[in-house]
């Protein structure tokens, strides 16, 4: 149980870091933000991720798999056309890169 707690807070910490770096990147130079803001945003993202995670798990199970694949993710994002397209594109790139890598090997 303690292990899980530690893990969770570690994850949150990592999430915070990324959220904050994205905020930093996206904000104008002279706009400031408070830690409270980052915290709430992190929480929001965390909750969203948890939900997505649960969904993905359910999808995979429904498909009779025990491993979540990129298809599950595409299914999850079916309502968000733009995001789905983006992910598809990304996936293609990754596949290409992998093939390249594999061919190098």
């Amino acid at each position: 149980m303690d292990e899980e707690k530690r893990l969770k807070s570690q994850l949150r910490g990592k999430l915070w870091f990324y959220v904050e770096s994205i905020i930093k990147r996206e904000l104008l130079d002279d706009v400031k933000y408070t830690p409270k803001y980052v915290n709430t945003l992190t929480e929001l993202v965390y909750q969203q991720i948890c939900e997505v995670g649960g969904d993905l798990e359910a999808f995979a199970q429904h498909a009779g798999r025990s491993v979540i694949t990129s298809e599950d993710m595409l299914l999850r994002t079916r309502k968000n056309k733009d995001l789905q397209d983006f992910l598809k594109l990304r996936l293609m790139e990754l596949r290409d890169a992998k093939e390249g890598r594999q061919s190098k090997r």
Partner: protein
Amino acid sequence: MADLSDLSDEDLESLLENNVNRSVNETVTRRSIPVQRDLFMNVLPNQRTFYEETHVDVKYGPTHHQLNEENLHEYIYPTNYEVRQYQYDIVRCALFENVLCAIPTGTGKTFIASTVMLNYYRWTKTSKIIFTAPTRPLVAQQIKACLGITGIPYSDTAILLDKSRKNREEIWQQKRVFFTTPQVVENDLKRGVLNPKDVVLLVIDEAHRARGNYAYVELTKFIDRFNTSYRLLALTATPAADLQGVQEVVNNLHISKVELRTEDSLDVARYMMNRDREMVEIELIPEIEEVIEQIGIAIAPVLQEAIQLGIYDNCEPHQINAFVAMQQSQKIILNPSLPEGLKWKNFFILQLLSQVGHMYRRLRIYGLRAFYNYFQNKYTEFTTKYTMKKSTNKTAANFYYSPILKTVIDKCKQQLEDPDFHGHEKLTYLNNELRDFFVLARPDSRAIIFTELRESALEIVKSIDIINDSALRPHIFIGQAKGKEQFDEETYVRKNKPKGRSKADRLRRIEEEKRVEEEKKKQKEQAKLDRTARRTGSSEEAQLSGMNQKQQKTVISDFKKGIYNVLVCTSIGEEGLDIGEVDLIICFDSTSSPIKNIQRMGRTGRKRDGRIVLLFSGNEKFKFEQAMNDYGNLQNAITHDALEYTKSDRILPANYTPQCKEKFIIISNENDEVNRLEDSDEVIKYATQAMLGKLKTKNKKEPKPKKTSAKAKKASEKTFFMPDNVNEGFTSASSMLNKYTINEFGEKVNVDPSVSVSEKIIKPKKEWNMLDEIEYDSVEISPAKSQVEEPSQAKKGDALQQLQQGILTPDETTNHIPSASQNSSVQTEPRTVLEPILKKLKLSHPENDADNHDYTALSKSDSASLEPSTEPQKIRQKRHEREKEFDNGFELAPVFTAADSSQLLTNQEQKYFLKKYVPDTVQWSIAPDLFRAKTSKIPHVVKIDTILKTFQDMHANTREKIIEMNRTNALARSMGYNRSVGMELEVMLPSIIVPTSTNPADLLEDEDGLSDFLSD
């Protein structure tokens, strides 16, 4: 007399209001408006929940003044002078309403005042008429006009200017028409010598001063407490500089109408003398341009620094403005977030800039000489302090010790040593103008030159004197304040030198001081002698030491006689002085105040045509035009009804509408005598004598027994002005206690019915009684309490009781009861008050309407069984009826009127209610059934709930959450730190436990992608 010391001023005032003939009925209607709520259906704070309309209805009862009925059917309009239409119109208004009469200077304000005074004199039998003006000459003017035009007999008039307090007392009693200053009236009112109820007409001259706490304001406030049935006539040439100012005057004086005429108004322009106004723009002489430039170079680094520090707006050095710099420095001083060191550094920079701004202003407007004096003064002050190490202001040192400045000043000095050199082109122009004017002018012509600086005034006098033209005889005319002490280097050095500690040292110091003092005296004496030898000596003398009233008077009389024919004035000459007729006005500088400008120009063109010359340089023309434009706009606004007025008493009974009767008034010899006098002092002297019956022509009717009366007055007691039917004398404490007995219904009944509550509002003390309450409170069952609380307790349980207790303290409720039992309608009062609260309660405890009805029936039977008497029964019945109305959702919440409540509640109670219950008259036009709203009932999804909770925690600063937040933050930091140092991300990542039976390829693929995705 009841002890009123524990009442606030407002209470006192409300008590007094009861016996003036004005009745103010204020009706407040409130309507609820939709409010913004958050997701939990809580009303967001800081918003108005109701919309309020206040309707004030002012009524006047019949006046208390004794009216002279046979004169009421007509009013007299003197036709001794030409009848002017606007005067005629204004007089007609001013007789029946409180009028603020703003007409240009020299258009006969005094005539209007005189006519109104005459008519009130005729209409009333004993009431007093008071004319007030802020200065002696103005009073004299009015006396002259009033006696010369209207022929009010001397025996009824009095001038209260040079009278001692003792004498005044008798005069107030004997006479009816008074000419005086507002301060005298104010003092005598407060002393109790003049009864405010006697005043029927108050004329206020120069009414634009009725702002802040000037005597005019205090005066009207005081009279208003006792007497609302008096006419007020306010006269001025310039109401105020802005609309707010006018509104303030209108409020203070209870004006109900403004009569405004400008010089361009059609009905006025016809009678105006021709005023030839010339505006001359003067170029700066090259010497000044040069100095401006050089100073600009010297100050540039300081200005740059200021701009960089962000404390001064970017501008060219020659645009530095003293006023802006001053404002900025004020702002910096008041800014608490600045560290001290920086604050003072900035302050000194701005101070220097402001000094430079002043230098520029003087250079541009007044010329080199004024600049040089100012500079020299500042320069010696600074250098002395600096060399003595009292000041370590590096920025200022750089400026003042700058070599550029030194050469400029030296050059300046050289130029100024030549007495024929004019420090500004304006001076040259002014001299030419004066010379040309007096060549053509009549021998009795006079000229006034206005300037704001004393130094500049003296410079003008000197420059005129140098021309040595016998036709020009100038003198300075300034206020009595002493000239500002120049910075004295020697004294400063001596004062701040390191002092010896020993006795010998001290003695030596005292000796030295004495010596220096004597030397100075000698020097001054010598300078004085020197000055008297010169022709402009007296002007110079005056510039240094100021002119006291006596000196001012002699100068004015000399000016009138023609010994001097050019007067150089500072702002003192602008208003209120009886300078007489002037043909030429020269404004050496201009002010941004339209009032000042108009008053200046109003000095001429009174009886014959005049000429005004305005000299502008720099941005003065712009400033002047803007000021005059603003003033024009203001006048427009006033004529277009942008003001709020107060309704005033008509005084005359409504069945009289006096007709105008134009009449040539034959003036008695004595009165006519006044018309021939010119000097204000003579007028006052003559009139005073005439009023005392001391004129030779008049029989000595009443030989004044002066000595005896003085003795008698000593004994006269101080009069207090109390409300009409107030109890005086002593009352024993025991008689002030309320004596209660408990009747068979458990109600308190007053033993002494004469002390009924509603009758004696004047003495709130009487029914406010702690002793009895304590006695009853100690008894377990307080009969008084139970009456109010029982129903509510039964109704909403403890919650409501608490609520109610919070609002009505036990004292309050119990105190309330005796009056309630006498007056059944009072019972409804707390009910009305409770309704909104009940509504609110409903929100939290949704209840069926049916429940309510059930309950009503229940409580009805309850009360019936409890109290079989008929009287209380009725009250209950009534309340239940009201309750039903309410339950139907269309309850008729009564409009709460102040007049209403004053009958039902005592003052204190009323105040308490009004303070505590803001929504006491909220009308729920459509009662929103908010408790049925569904959203608040359905719980959120866990995710939304968590997020909402996070928001709430962040908002409420929940401790654990903040700690958690900081921990996460720290984790993130350490991660970021490690990363930036260059450690592998995976090293410190938590080891993520991956289920074993997976396709590693798939995982790898995604994970790679993820980290790539995130790291860019």
